């Protein structure tokens, strides 16, 4: 009996004690080319980092073309996702602790948080740009990382990042000493740091409510009457009316709005609009609620926008053009425009 067969049998006995013991060797050996194609991870010690190089200047050009639309020209935008850059001081580069993270209002960015430069390289290489992952060359990834590092003054403007210089960069990462491993939550046998007891009687002298939602936020998640079962001993509260008033009627309106909004949102998703337009923030095109704000009170807007969406075009929000949208029917297009102009609510 071969050793691997023996091992397979032992594991079978261990894990599947109830099943008949059989050799389970299945699958096949991976080829070196296959491993090379998929084994993309880069560890903190730079195992897995391919050779290559990119300059800050190259990175800036690449950034404008492929990253700035979502992250802003300086990685500062929070319209699509949290800012990548910011919160790093020169002192942090010396101490290796991002001081902002200990403040009352910490600036959490990719650069202020990351202890390791490998993390940025690995992530951009595996997943960015968001809408075209793994489309960058190795040198482009080096260039993008170099540009990000320069924005936080970790490297100078004439820097070239490559598989060797990246090791020097690691010694200047602003939060390189900021991470701790807490065994209590790393492993299921770990002990917690928050120890409570299960008191059963007279456990507190006074009970005071320290936080509650303000009345004006009552309907911020949409009408809660439409978010619980319609029958049964508890129902969703009609949040279109003030708490405790038991007033009537508006639910009718809400239900109708909610269902047309949900249908329009589905159209926008299915029609690919939301790939370029966020509900609130812009992506490639403007955010839907930005469009609503721009055309508020403009009676001609609905017809104008329907025509624009159909024909495509640029110049109103920037230089990037919207391609002609031929997918939605005329009726669907009208529903989409109404929905956008009413603020593109997600419910």
């Amino acid at each position: 009996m071969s050793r691997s067969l023996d091992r397979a049998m032992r594991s079978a006995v261990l894990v599947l004690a109830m099943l008949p013991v059989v050799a389970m060797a299945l699958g096949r050996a991976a080829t070196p080319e296959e491993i090379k194609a998929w084994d993309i991870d880069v560890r903190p010690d730079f195992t897995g980092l391919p050779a290559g190089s990119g300059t800050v200047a190259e990175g800036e050009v690449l950034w404008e073309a492929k990253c700035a639309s979502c992250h802003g020209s300086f990685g500062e935008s929070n319209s699509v996702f949290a800012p990548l850059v910011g919160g790093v001081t020169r002192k942090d580069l010396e101490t290796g602790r991002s001081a902002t993270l200990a403040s009352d209002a910490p600036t959490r960015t990719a650069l202020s948080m990351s202890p390791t430069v490998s993390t940025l390289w690995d992530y951009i290489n595996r997943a960015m740009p968001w809408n075209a992952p793994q489309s960058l060359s190795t040198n482009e990834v080096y260039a993008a990382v170099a540009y990000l590092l320069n924005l936080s003054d970790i490297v100078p403007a004439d820097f070239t990042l490559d598989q060797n210089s990246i090791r020097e960069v690691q010694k200047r990462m602003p939060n390189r000493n900021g991470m701790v491993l807490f065994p209590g939550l790393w492993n299921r046998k770990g002990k917690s740091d928050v120890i409570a007891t299960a008191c059963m009687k007279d456990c507190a002298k006074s009970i005071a409510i320290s936080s509650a939602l303000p009345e004006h936020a009552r309907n911020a998640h949409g009408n809660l009457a439409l978010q619980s079962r319609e029958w049964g001993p508890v129902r969703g509260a009609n949040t279109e009316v003030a708490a405790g008033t038991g007033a009537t009627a508006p639910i009718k309106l809400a239900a109708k709005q909610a269902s047309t909004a949900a249908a329009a949102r589905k159209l926008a998703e299915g029609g690919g609009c939301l790939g370029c337009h966020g509900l609130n923030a812009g992506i490639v095109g403007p955010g839907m609620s930005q469009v609503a704000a721009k055309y508020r009170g403009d009676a001609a807007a609905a017809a104008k926008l329907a025509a624009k969406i159909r024909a495509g075009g640029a110049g109103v929000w920037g230089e990037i053009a919207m391609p002609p949208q031929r997918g939605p029917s005329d009726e669907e297009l009208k529903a989409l425009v109404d929905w956008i102009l009413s603020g593109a609510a997600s419910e």
Partner: protein
Amino acid sequence: MSEQTDRRGRIRPAPENFLSRAQIAEVSAGRRDFLRKAMLAASAGVAAPAALAASGDPAILEKQVWGATLGKPVASDAYGLPSKHEANLVRRESPGLASVGGASVAFTPLQGLFGIITPSGLHFERHHQGWQDVDPAKHRLMINGLVKTPKVYTMDDLLRFPSVSRIHFLECGANSAMEWANTAVPTVQYTHGMLSCSEWTGVPLKVLLDDCGIDLKKAKFIYAEGADGSHQNRTIPLEWALDDVIVAYGQNGEMLRPQQGYPLRLVVPGAQGVSWIKYLRRIEVGDQRWNTKDETLHYADLMPDGSTRQYTSVQEAKSVITSPSGGQVMLDRGMHTISGLAWSGRGKIKRVDVSTDGGRNWQTASLGSLVLDKALTRFQLPWQWDGGPAVLQSRAVDETGYVQPQMRQLREVRGTRSVYHNNAIQSWKVTETGEVFNVQIA
């Protein structure tokens, strides 16, 4: 029954508040007459049983359409869907939480669910780069690194192994994150809805690692990676990987749903969701941690001193009352059943206590018949609501003796900016009108 209507403090919500979807449609279509009838029925059924004392309940006395007509044939709904009367219970986003739907979360409507299993279509969604519907014929699992033979498995290969099926909860590490500093969202769907529990079927990871000849002398960690655009990746301790981690393809008796990683995902019992890599394409065995993006920039817990805890993977014991819960209204005083969920990433739930007076006094709830390891556990407590104000809380104790803490106790140690791992006791305030609100207790 009839004398109940005269009791002081009885809740009589206007029935218009509780029109059903169908009734609303009728009203919108201009059928006022229908509305009048519906309101009569509603006030009869809900608020004033005395009104129908003479003849009886129209639901009984009148013929109903379902009892007087022929029903629909088999397979008219080939993949069965819930009743139209359940249309309110769907996954929802929390407005303003994320700006793009591809890097967002849709929460499970816990307020309407029973038992411990989450229907697959209501399992919460969390994607970093949208969801994909991967072709199983082209999906491969590679295992490489510190193994004797790096291997590739097709889905066909994986289905030839004997499988295990286990019921485990899956909770996002950021569940309840919005509530660290103050109350922020109205209902249990948004406070706790990044939570689900399914029966997962697949091959124990240990079997596959053994099949590749894992080098147990050198190996310390496992790395898992997805096939979708995010190529999501996480480090897992070897000890955990060899214990009960499953390479899963099944969810509640069918294949995984695309939003849950079809056709293959990792199941890491007790760990936060981000470790349960979806669209699993590769496992690497290694001797160092990887510091991936979602174990450094996110899913890492900021402490009051500015240090960040990495690799916080275990979901500590937690519980929440799902009915009655925030954003709901209790229609009447008297007998109710408080019902909720408890779970622990360290093992089984031992006990759940419930308080109706904001934590002054506690009673032990009864646990459902299924009390499983690292699974949701249903608890219940009958409650006579006297119509007065109340604050409902639940507190879980797991088999290690760990007691679910109060918000205050968590903050004392971890501050308010940790984002992840908020397992505090949840408080729901009940007012005299029967409305239930999300509150925090000092």
